[in-house]
């Protein structure tokens, strides 16, 4: 069961990575990176249990904190001019739907 769940987490990480690569807006990429980081925390925990070494949970705790700080840090700078979102970028999204 642990290995099946690990494979499911890997599939979810792969799908999130696809969204991070093709994401039309800047915030889609940040969302995909955030989800990828959360899945990495779960993946490290599961790998620790699969390999019989639960000490990996320390790394998972550190990664959760790092993920949060990176997302908040990027969002802190997202209000500046370079990241300013133009609404006509969203038109491609609306055509796709």
């Amino acid at each position: 069961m642990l290995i099946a769940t690990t494979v499911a987490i890997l599939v979810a990480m792969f799908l999130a990575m696809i969204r991070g690569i093709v994401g039309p807006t800047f915030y889609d990429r940040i969302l995909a990176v955030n989800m990828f980081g959360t899945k990495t925390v779960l993946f490290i925990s599961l790998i620790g249990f699969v390999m019989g070494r639960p000490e990996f949970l320390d790394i998972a705790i550190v990664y959760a904190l790092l993920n949060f700080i990176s997302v908040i840090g990027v969002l802190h700078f997202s209000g500046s001019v370079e990241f300013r979102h133009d609404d006509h970028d969203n038109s491609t999204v609306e055509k796709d739907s």
Partner: protein
Amino acid sequence: MDIVIAVVSAIFLLLGGFLCVTGGVGILRFPDFYTRIHATGVTDTLGAGLILIGLMLQVPDVLVLVKLVIILLMTLFINPVATHALAQAALKSGLSPLLQSKNHKGG
């Protein structure tokens, strides 16, 4: 008693893995940024919670259980905060939600 715990742990783990794959499909197929936040929120709270509870049922000692509880609490507190900040930053920067009246004009 031992096999009951193993079966319950397997159910939790598989349900969490299924929810994570569902969220992955959702983040890939939903049409809008604000709907993709919903898909991510499902995996961040319920999927991670179920997987961590499933791991908690097969811990070898107490210290590992404490670490898993810490990870669960941090996941439950940190990810909604990050998602909220992300949605607020997107809305402030002018990313408009995809409304139905934009697709069907006059409808």
